[in-house]
């Protein structure tokens, strides 16, 4: 049983998201950048869920969901969009990208019925029987892994904005 408050846990998740976002800006293998960006949005969402006081640390440490729901709420609400610098169209693109990243998290992929990759972090076996790794076989890295790619820049800037405006967006 934790003696820390849910707000303290939320702030810690946000601090870790910030560190992982900073790491994603470095010269990295592209699949590692994709994994870091998935982890960043997962932690930003978890910080919001914990802040609600209705979610437990136990859930935060075992679930990998939340980012897609957070994006659905941000995308649909003009009350929330007004706080953000991105356009409605960019938000819709970001939601698709973040949904895709959430689905590439191995536990989420398995929960959704996929028994093999491609996914982030772990190797997988291809239909031809070859065991491959994210760094060798993760597709669509131009969307969320290539440094300087427009969508990677958009994801990075948006994550930074969510971290900075977290208290404005989530109570």
């Amino acid at each position, binding site marked *: 049983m934790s003696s820390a408050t849910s707000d303290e846990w939320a702030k810690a998740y946000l601090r870790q998201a910030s560190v992982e976002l900073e790491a994603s800006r470095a010269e990295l293998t592209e699949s590692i950048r994709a994994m870091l960006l998935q982890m960043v949005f997962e932690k930003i*969402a978890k910080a*919001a*869920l914990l*802040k*609600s*006081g*209705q*979610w437990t640390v136990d*859930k935060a440490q075992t*679930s990998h*969901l*939340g980012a*897609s*729901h*957070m994006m*659905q*709420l941000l995308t*649909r*609400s*003009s*009350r*929330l969009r007004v706080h953000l610098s991105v356009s409605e169209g960019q938000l819709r693109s970001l939601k698709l990208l973040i949904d895709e990243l959430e689905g590439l998290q191995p536990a*989420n992929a398995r*929960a*959704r019925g996929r028994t093999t990759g491609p996914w982030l972090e772990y190797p997988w076996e291809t239909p031809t029987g070859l065991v491959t790794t994210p760094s060798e076989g993760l597709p669509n890295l131009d969307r969320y892994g290539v440094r300087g790619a427009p969508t990677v820049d958009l994801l990075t800037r948006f994550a930074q904005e969510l971290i900075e405006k977290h208290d*404005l*967006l*989530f*109570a």
Partner: protein
Amino acid sequence: MLAAEHALDDPAIQQIFLVPHADEVRLIEVTTSVRPDGEILPFRFAAGRGVPFRSVVIMVNPTDWERRGELRWPPDLDPARADIERLLDQRDPAA
């Protein structure tokens, strides 16, 4: 008012339920806009223009709503509570 706004924002909402609370608006929204992942994810938002109370929103896919008794809800937001109130029902009667 908030529920009506959300129904306009998300045409995929089928039902909205109010979980009564003294200090904030707590809504459970049944919508196909989220996947049936079986997890209950509550987000809280500050009071704002036209909404003088904080609000908590949980979005649930209709498939998860059908099996809501099997899911792990926060005790304060459990739809099994007797005082839950349906604010909106726009399910397709032909479905």
